[in-house]
């Protein structure tokens, strides 16, 4: 399998007069064609910043300090803005969180999907409308509904429209930012099913940014757990969820309600994630960690391969299976 996207040692700062901060530090990962990767973490962990950097859409204060983002051997960070615009559209499709509310209320949905192709690929309107119909079918909307307006669509349906738009120019990579947040459980399941089939049938590389471990477990192959701007753990979903190495990952899993085992208590992680402008000197999870030692307070652990294809940054990694 070819690697669709590779990120090497990415570090991002926010420079602002009030609070300069390190949002992302030394994050590396890769996504293969036809596979899916989850960027997981709580709010403020740097997952959204990382995602924006992939598209080079960081806000003005954002600076990519170091690192490479390789897409088919091309470093996206070296491209001119014009070249990047082509990549953004034709190689990487993206579904933003909340973007479903950004549909133009006074234009028909089919028209809006087609317009993307007319503008970016210089297709004729007729051609583009036909392709828009196909795309709507792929994401599970009856093509007749192309003639309807966004207000006639439910939240889940609008999210499907956004996915169809992202697919309009046949990208190789699809990035979905919190694709199921604010949707009902059944609709969540439907959207996840679509994302999974896109990955399997169209061979897309899918990157899902989420805070929901359930989403990760359902649809992703690999997972990158971020904490305080750094990678805590990185590996296949199967291995990470059955043998979590980082205490943070394990606590997160314990905080996730498992309805097959109702008698267990829901665990929470005491304390708060670190403030990015005031990071601890050692391990960023140290203040909340139950396994910490004196070492953790001073030395930030580096990431290393502790199991096959399974990386973690921890001085005292967890051992054994995780099965509750």
């Amino acid at each position, binding site marked *: 399998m070819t690697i669709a996207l590779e990120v090497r040692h990415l570090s991002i700062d926010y420079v602002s007069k009030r609070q300069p901060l390190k949002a992302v530090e030394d994050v590396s990962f890769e996504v293969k064609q036809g596979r899916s990767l989850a960027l997981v973490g709580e709010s403020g962990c740097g997952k959204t910043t990382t995602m924006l950097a992939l598209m080079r859409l960081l806000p003005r204060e954002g600076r990519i300090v170091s690192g490479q983002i390789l897409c088919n051997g091309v470093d996206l960070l070296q491209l001119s803005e014009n070249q990047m615009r082509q990549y953004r559209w034709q190689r990487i499709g993206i579904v933003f969180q909340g973007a479903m509310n950004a549909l133009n209320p006074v234009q028909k949905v089919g028209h809006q999907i087609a317009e993307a192709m007319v503008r970016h690929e210089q297709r004729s309107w007729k051609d583009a409308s036909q392709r828009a119909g196909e795309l709507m079918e792929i994401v599970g909307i009856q093509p007749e509904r192309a003639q309807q307006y966004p207000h006639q669509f439910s939240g889940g349906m609008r999210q499907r429209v956004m996915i169809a738009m992202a697919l309009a120019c046949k990208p190789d990579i699809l990035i979905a930012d919190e694709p199921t947040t604010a949707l009902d459980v059944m609709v969540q*399941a439907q959207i996840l099913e679509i994302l999974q089939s896109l990955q399997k049938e169209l061979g897309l590389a899918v990157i899902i940014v989420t805070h*929901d471990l359930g989403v990760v477990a359902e649809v992703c192959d690999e997972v990158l757990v971020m904490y305080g701007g750094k990678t805590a753990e990185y590996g296949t979903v*199967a291995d990470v969820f059955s043998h979590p190495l980082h205490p943070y990952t394990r606590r997160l899993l314990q*905080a*996730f309600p498992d*309805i*097959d085992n109702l008698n267990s208590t*829901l665990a*929470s992680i005491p304390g708060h994630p670190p403030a990015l402008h005031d990071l601890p000197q050692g391990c960023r999870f140290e203040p909340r960690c139950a396994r910490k030692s004196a070492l953790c307070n001073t030395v930030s652990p580096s990431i290393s391969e502790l199991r096959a294809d399974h990386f973690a940054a921890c001085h005292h990694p967890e051992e054994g299976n995780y099965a509750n």
Partner: protein
Amino acid sequence: MQIDTPSPVLEVSNVRKLYPISGGLRQFLRQQGSSFVHALDGISFRLERGEILGVVGESGSGKSTTALSVLGLINPTEGHIMFDGQDVNQMVRSRDRMKLRRQVQMIFQDPYEALNPRQTVYEIVAEPLEVHHIVRTKEEKTERVKIALLQAGLKPPENYLKRYPGELSGGQRQRVVIAGALVLQPKLLVADEPVSMLDVSIRAEILNLLRQLRDEHGISILYITHDLATAGFFTDRIAVMYLGRIVEIGKTSEVLKDPIHPYTRALISVIPTTKQDRKQKRVILQGEIPNPVDIPSGCRFHPRCPAAIDQCRDVDPQLDVKNGRHPVACIRADET
């Protein structure tokens, strides 16, 4: 008189709520009567003292209308809601209404929205005391605010009094909302998706806090959610709602281990699990909850039901106990 038979803190019987919708010019010209949105279509349940009842459903199921009716913020079209033996909607006298407002408190979904950004934590938590003229002196007020903040797990309370919601994290804000509810020492909390906007690691904290309030103060809780998984952990009983009706109600363990209604089964099957070895077959229902203006004939779930038979199109099933299990509204209940 009735000391030895404890009455439920809340009893909802046959509540219906219809919203008339104007049908526009065409309907007006044809002189048809206006149609209705059936937000609630005859729901009944009891909430015992110190009990946590989960009301689970998707958006459009009527769960939020239920919450607002219990709070007396919406008047049902039909039926009765008895709080502490008094009919909420007959509380015309303002003294009774104020008693309801004092003893039933709401916890909101979005802690970023539920707090006035221009008020300090102190002002927010003290406001209910002022509205109900409960405290006489400023010292007493400050004392009660501090106690409520402590109960809500904001320690030490002095650190929070002068802060604005914008300076707090999501979990802390939700605790402020809870403190604002606790300061009146309510009997019933209506919690509308209290954790769905929070990070996973914070959710358990908030739910554990609510459960602790029940255990220590005997507060009853009506937990409104779309998330069966957290409801499974947190509630004593669960009522599953679909399109304005309760389709299944029973002890949480029974409903989750032995679901009868096909809708409940589907909901349970799509609950994400992190256990790789336990992924079961998922039943993903197609489509979404129909528009509550024209409700399907017969069983309202039949167009999406994987187990529907012809009869389901005609018979409107009522909540019923079959084979000694928990109440469910499905004509095929005894087959499964």
